[in-house]
């Protein structure tokens, strides 16, 4: 079965710094999702990446997809405190029509 791994699991960073969250998936997938979750809340859709080489940016967040390497990245530029949350990547399993989620990355941006 498709497996999705994220790293790091926890990331503490200072405001203004850059960092990248990595998402590896075990089998070829043509659809990769990134979600944000605040404590006790639901999942907020950030990006849907649909093809190899896809890159999307929204504010300080940029996501990319390399299907050959089975890797997606979420890059954070000049972090601000408001970005503190848990970030999940999820790969679409086309054989079973379901999302397979990673373990999540808890991001804490310190002032």
């Amino acid at each position, binding site marked *: 079965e498709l497996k*999705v791994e994220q790293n790091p699991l926890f990331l503490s960073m200072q405001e203004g710094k850059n960092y990248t969250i990595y998402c590896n998936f075990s089998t070829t997938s043509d*659809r990769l*999702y990134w*979600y944000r979750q605040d404590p*006790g*809340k*639901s*999942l*907020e*859709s950030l990006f*849907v990446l*649909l093809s190899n080489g896809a890159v999307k940016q929204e504010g300080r967040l940029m996501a990319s997809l390399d299907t050959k390497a089975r890797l997606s990245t979420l890059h954070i530029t000049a972090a601000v405190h408001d970005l503190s949350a848990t970030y*999940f990547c*999820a790969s*679409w399993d086309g054989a*079973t*029509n*379901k*999302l*397979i*989620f*990673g*373990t*999540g990355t808890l991001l804490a941006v310190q002032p």
Partner: protein
Amino acid sequence: DAGVTQSPTHLIKTRGQQVTLRCSPKSGHDTVSWYQQALGQGPQFIFQYYEEEERQRGNFPDRFSGHQFPNYSSELNVNALLLGDSALYLCASTSWGSGSYEQYFGPGTRLTVT
């Protein structure tokens, strides 16, 4: 345009009891998927409903069952509750075959089993 709605928001049940959670999909969506998210973990797929039938199922026991109504809303039923069923239950909706890849999640139902 209302997004995905779920009820109730919170629920406390005792071991052995039964619970029903409800989900209304986003307007225009006809497919509903249910996920269980235990504390500190990523969501796990329970099952998916389309055209009032269960289309896919994850690795969950038969105690977990569901239903979809003609208006596309859905229920998740859990029988013989265990302490380990305590989790956030998320409903996601999409439009089958529309070419849209978005999966919209509802606010969730927090179930606590004591």
